[in-house]
């Protein structure tokens, strides 16, 4: 089954471009560390998911590029084509001239309805190119106007037009200290709307990725390109082909469906966080060796202590003791309770990795058995030159604090009514804000009392 990616706004287009690049390089790379047959299966599965292969031409990404100003899309298209190893469909993009002015209301209420037909036509064309449509993957930032506002509108349109398809929104959480002053308003409006139409929200926080670049990747002058490449690597480690069943003989054909099934048991809980281990500069890889027990141990502690990366983990945090009378009140502070977790292992000896520590019931809420709450996908095929790598996609309290912080700041600003006139100008009224706040306070509350 194929995934149609919708790249929205500057951020969405810049990241989407890196993602296809990573995926393509991985598939053509020589360090798969597996048999030729395995490699071919992997290649075929990846192609089905992400690319459309015309006979003698380079693979064409299954993507629709949308932006309200032309510079980023034109750059994205040309850089991809220059790579020589893949490209975008030349007609599969939509752009305007004015931009959205960082205004969610402009993106949602003005650009959305105005360009709905044109955009959905492009999506429909891409969907028709797929033998079997596995769902939609949208990439957007919350901070601006296009990715956020138009992105929310497009997601709604996708839901209306494809009621039975899976929709996963990849959302970039902006730096805490602004890229955009009204980013908290835009974020609140985006999240509350996406919650209604999307199946799940997979989040990357700029602050976190920035730290990874600084501390793990040793990059001195970090650019957005560096940040986007780390994000693309993490996404690739989730969406490249895997075997989802024990003893399965074929790569899973339904990545989005499988993801939703394992991680989103309840529609109130849609926020997914992503962690990846190990993460290091490429030139270090040749000199590093990893052991699975070490990697798994770190990954588990990253989950429990809500650590953003494999350095600086707080090892003091422990799960609550079993047999406590009331699970909620006896929970140690800083302990990250999970609803469901998915671990993805790639590379050498993945079949023998012991994941028992992830099945510990004390990690989870009581509504699912650990068997249902925890899943593992594996493949012996190494990813992106890492001999061994593990990714964790988690539906847990990972994003509770960032969410609470964004809502708090937005509320603070809303109380003074600052900037509200910029939104009402385009049809988003104070009641719409209040509805969004209410919806998110509900989500915060639900995640808090886990």
């Amino acid at each position, binding site marked *: 089954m194929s995934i149609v990616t919708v790249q929205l706004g500057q951020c969405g287009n810049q990241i989407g471009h890196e993602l296809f690049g990573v995926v393509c390089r991985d598939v053509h790379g020589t360090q798969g560390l597996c048999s030729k047959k395995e490699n071919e299966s992997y290649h075929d599965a990846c192609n089905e998911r992400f690319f459309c292969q015309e006979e003698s031409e380079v693979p064409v990404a299954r993507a629709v590029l949308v932006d309200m100003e032309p510079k980023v899309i034109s750059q994205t298209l040309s850089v991809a084509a220059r790579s020589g190893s893949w490209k975008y469909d030349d007609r599969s993009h939509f752009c305007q001239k004015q931009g959205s002015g960082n205004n969610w209301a402009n993106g949602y209420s003005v650009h959305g309805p105005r360009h709905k037909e044109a955009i959905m036509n492009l999506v429909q064309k891409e969907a028709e190119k797929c033998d079997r449509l596995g769902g939609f993957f949208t990439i957007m930032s919350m901070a601006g106007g296009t990715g956020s506002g138009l992105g929310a509108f497009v997601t709604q349109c996708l839901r209306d037009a494809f009621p039975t398809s899976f929709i996963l929104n990849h959302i970039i959480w902006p730096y805490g200290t602004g890229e955009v002053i009204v980013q908290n308003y835009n974020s609140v409006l985006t999240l509350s709307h996406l919650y209604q139409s999307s199946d799940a929200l997979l989040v990357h926080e700029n602050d976190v990725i920035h730290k990874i670049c600084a501390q793990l990747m040793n990059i001195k002058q970090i650019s957005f390109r560096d940040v986007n490449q780390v994000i693309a690597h993490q996404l690739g480690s989730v969406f490249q082909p895997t075997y989802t069943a024990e003893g399965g003989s074929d790569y899973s054909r339904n990545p989005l469906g499988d993801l939703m099934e394992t991680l989103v048991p309840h529609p109130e809980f849609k926020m997914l966080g992503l962690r990846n281990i190990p993460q290091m500069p490429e030139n270090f890889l040749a000199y590093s060796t990893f052991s699975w027990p070490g990697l798994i141990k770190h990954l588990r502690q990253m989950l429990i202590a809500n650590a953003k990366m494999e350095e600086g983990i707080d090892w003091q945090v422990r799960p609550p003791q079993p047999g406590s009378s009331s699970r909620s009140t006896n929970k140690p502070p800083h302990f990250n309770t999970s609803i469901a977790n998915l671990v993805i292992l790639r590379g050498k000896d993945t079949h023998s990795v012991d994941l028992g520590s992830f099945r510990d019931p004390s990690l989870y809420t009581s509504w699912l058995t650990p068997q249902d709450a925890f899943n593992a996908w594996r493949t012996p095929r190494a990813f992106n030159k890492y001999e061994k790598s593990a990714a964790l996609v988690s539906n847990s309290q990972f994003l509770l604090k960032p969410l609470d912080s964004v809502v708090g700041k937005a509320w603070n600003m809303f109380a003074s009514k600052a900037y509200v006139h910029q939104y009402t100008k385009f049809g988003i009224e104070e009641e719409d804000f209040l509805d969004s706040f*209410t919806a998110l306070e509900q989500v915060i509350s639900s995640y808090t009392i886990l």
Partner: protein
Amino acid sequence: LTRVYLLFAVGQCGNQVGCRFWDLALREHAAVNKKGIYDEALSSFFRNVDTRSGGDGADIYKGKICSLKARALLIDMEEGVVNEILQGPLRDVFDSKQLITDVSGSGNNWAVGHKVYGCQYRESIVEKLRKAAEHCDCLQCFFIIHSMGGGTGSGLGTFVLSLLEDEFPEVYRFVTSVYPSGEDDVITSPYNSVLAMKELNEHADCVLPIENESLFDIVNKIQQMINSGKLGSTVKPKSLVTSSAGGAKAVQEKPFDAMNNIIANLLLNLTSSARFEGSLNMDLNEISMNLVPFPRLHYLVSSLTPLYTLADVNVPPRRLDQMFSDAFSRDHQLIQADPKHSLYLACALLVRGNVQVSDLRRNIERLKPSLHFISWNQEGWKTSLCSVPPVGHSHSLLALANNTCVKPTFMELKDRFMKLYKKKAHLHHYLHIEGMEQSCFSEAIASLSDLIEEYNELDATKDGPRTDPPRLKIAV
């Protein structure tokens, strides 16, 4: 096909600055666009006209540059400045349809500029405006450049402003206004400025106030630095923010040229991220969106750094950090103000050149503690990164601040106004103009007073205790 801007240079000051702007814009695009192709960046400020058949040919949208015409209207009620432009090296950049001139001037009288000439030239302005707009595929923003203290720039300039709102309400209106200093030799400049202020309050989306004193101080500072030999290596040619070097203009510079170059650079840097590529783009409409929390508080204090580049090519991070520090120092502001000691409502950093997001973050973290931000916008930063630096520099920074430090400028203006108004000095020159009444004055001063009061109320919150409003409670 890109968004384009239309520039209105009104009055003597407006046109002198405008002339510098066009000259520097051409130079900037020539430096980037080596192949002479008419590209999107150029099209934002220039039309490409086929003049081979003579006269006003059709617009050429792609391919080689034929003849560039500035997207501008030059308006002056005296002929001197505009004539000079038309005889100078920029003459081919304008055609006669872009000019509106008269001979007698406005006599430093806002009422003459606004009421008399406004009425007289309304139709002509609308017609030329519409014609110019027809050539624009997607008109995003109007820029008006004028001074506040005289008659034409101030009166007719603000007339054009309200006209633009009537004719094209959805297009953003950015105004660069040069405010008179206390020692201005035009006695009635306070009247003209306050009457103009009311118009700016009501019809502008964003105003960038500039004070001659600040420009003068900056020019002197640069001169001193060069003369004193304090600089180890020589200053890189063409890098002075005050310099016209490399432009089309002849070497003989006029006294105001250096000051006007600063304003011209301001406008270039303001629009750079919309014209050229970068990892974090910023359009003009984003500036208004992020920096104007309440409709009337749309006055942005600007600062430009660096003022010049040293000749050494390697740029250590410390020098980069110094650029950020300078942007917040008193002596780099383009009005007499000290943003560090007042209250920020919002701040934007427009960076050009080889600067990455980590440099931005590092400097914001470093400078934040010494700045006061209003309680509901503690992290109120808007940032952009444009890859293309200005000519002669490896990087540059334009900071725009919505800060209460603009208040003293307005208060002094009010004081100077009241000094004259109390004695009814020179009022008859205005009141005898048709359409002018005493109420024009009282309304104008009321508008200014209200604005000052809004800033006062915000300042009052500055040192108060910080109590966040309680969050919504959800029934569990």
